[in-house]
């Protein structure tokens, strides 16, 4: 007798969830539809989910001169990968001594890093430091170096190192392993799940970063990140047009609205397809990140 009641609630729940999924996907699919549309249809009928005339003009237009896109992909991939591995390595380096109870600087170093979580110089001092004194602006290093060490991640990794049984470390010590060896051959491999989760989160953050480029890349346009390129195109379609006037001189309508959306999918599409495969690590990271020691 209870079964029927449960079924009704399940139906209601499923309807709610399906509606939520539609709200989530519909806007994205709308953009996809626009990117495959004819520019004139958009101007006449507005954005439509299903294009009236399916065509690839917008993509052809975007790819007519792909140099800026390829540059941005290259730069973003390089700094994301280097930055992520560097971050894991540098933070593990600090997390390991902090996880050892007999390290005499443990408490002072804990405070040293903890303080940076509480108080920082803020935007202007950081900006001046990077540009005036360290001269990181207009170099690829500005994406990589500042993010190498983060107190928050150190504490996360430390917690994970601390959960490695002490007997294991001691037996390694008895076998004559150096501390470096313990870190590289025991701690890091044993903490792989946490490190992988952290690495993926960092990678996602770096891949989607536009702020750094907006602040620090001024003249060297070949160094701007993918998302910043996208942002600049949003504000200024002309960036694409300048590149592309060649092949499209005789066209009456230059793709504007459609090319914008095509550009968005060229930039975001691959990530949108790949990242969900790692969904379970991100989900795990959510739980790990919220409960820390």
């Amino acid at each position, binding site marked *: 007798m209870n079964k029927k009641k449960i079924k009704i609630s399940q139906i209601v729940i499923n309807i709610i969830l399906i509606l939520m999924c539609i709200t989530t996907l519909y806007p994205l699919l709308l953009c996809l539809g626009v990117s495959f549309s004819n520019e004139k249809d958009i101007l006449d009928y507005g954005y439509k989910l299903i294009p009236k005339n399916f065509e690839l003009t917008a993509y052809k237009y975007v790819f007519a001169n792909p140099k800026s896109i390829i540059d941005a992909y290259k730069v973003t991939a390089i700094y994301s990968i280097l930055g992520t591995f560097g971050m894991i390595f*540098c933070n593990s380096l600090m997390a390991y001594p902090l996880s050892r109870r007999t390290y005499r600087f443990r408490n002072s170093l804990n405070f*040293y890093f903890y303080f940076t979580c509480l108080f920082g110089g803020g935007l202007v001092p950081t900006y001046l430091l990077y540009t005036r004194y360290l001269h990181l602006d207009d170099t690829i290093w500005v994406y990589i170096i500042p993010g190498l060490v983060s107190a928050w991640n150190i504490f996360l990794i430390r917690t994970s190192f601390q959960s490695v049984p002490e007997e294991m470390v001691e037996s390694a010590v008895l076998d004559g392993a150096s501390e470096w060896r313990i870190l590289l051959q025991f701690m890091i491999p044993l903490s792989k799940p946490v490190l992988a989760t952290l690495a993926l989160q960092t990678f996602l953050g770096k891949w989607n970063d536009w702020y750094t480029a907006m602040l620090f890349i001024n003249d060297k346009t070949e160094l701007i990140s993918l*998302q910043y390129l996208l942002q600049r195109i949003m504000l200024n379609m002309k960036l694409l047009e300048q590149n592309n006037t060649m092949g499209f001189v005789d066209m009456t309508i230059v793709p504007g609205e459609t090319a914008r959306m095509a550009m968005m999918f060229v930039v975001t599409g691959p990530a949108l397809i790949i990242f969900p495969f790692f969904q379970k690590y991100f989900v795990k990271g*959510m739980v790990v990140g919220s409960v820390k020691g």
Partner: protein
Amino acid sequence: MKLKKDDIIPVKKRRRIGGREWQWIQMSILPVLHTFIFCYCTLPGLLIAFKDYRYIDGILGSKWVGFDNFKFFVLSNDCLRLVRNTIGLNGLFIITSMIAQIALAIIFYELTSRKALKAYQTILITPHFISWVTVGYVVYALLQPQYGLINNMLATFGIEGIQFYNEPAVWPAILSFANIWKGVGMGCIIYYATLMGIDSTLFEAARVDGATKLQEIRYVTLPMLSRLIVLQLIMAIGGIFNSDFGLFYQLTRDSGVLYETTDVIDTYLYRTMRVIGDMKLSSAVGFLKSVVGFILVYLTNFIVRKYDEELSLF
């Protein structure tokens, strides 16, 4: 055993630095130096807030002006607007996204089919993977005044379209919605994980006592989550002055017309520094933000530590 012995040695008696400790020190050098350069070296820059900063004079060479920069900001019209927008909008986001996350977590928990759960979860998490720039494009597709989806739909009903990008009043709602749209799939997970940890006999007991589904949620599920909710709330309040820059900057396309309801401290800091180029004003505001933020984080963390050792930052 060696480790335990070390612990017992009284602190007063200076231990000699052994080989193992040297190696730990070697490991510490790089991260400590990095943090010194990239975090501690920004602190002298805070002095700019009290100076008439000029690029040629540098930080130390510029003239002291006391609290003039602060006075200028506090007396300007921007001050009230910024504080109101920052606390108001972030407060709104904290509440709306929390309600949405908890609701979704409960819905997920009540869903019996594991396979369906997986599918729904995958779809709802998707927006987490795209950047605010891309969300800006998506919002643009919906709100574009001439061709956008919403005005299109309004037109079919014969209603005149709204010039969204010239209409400050609608933006708190748009931003809250976008915030939920991007974050709810990921945000609900912490609540969902907590729900999964609840002893299921509690629900059975409630069912035996004849509780309806809604009563079960009201009297069993929510009380079980209350502790987590309070903690999340306190921690969110600790960071209330840190706005999600991308949300405010990309979605509004940094449109001046909308500043009335969308300009927050972080966007103001960026604008005064990079667009207007007023370093001293920007750093005075940044200084205030750092100090107030410090007090808030410290206080909230103190409360959390009292409340629950394990969850506090330190």
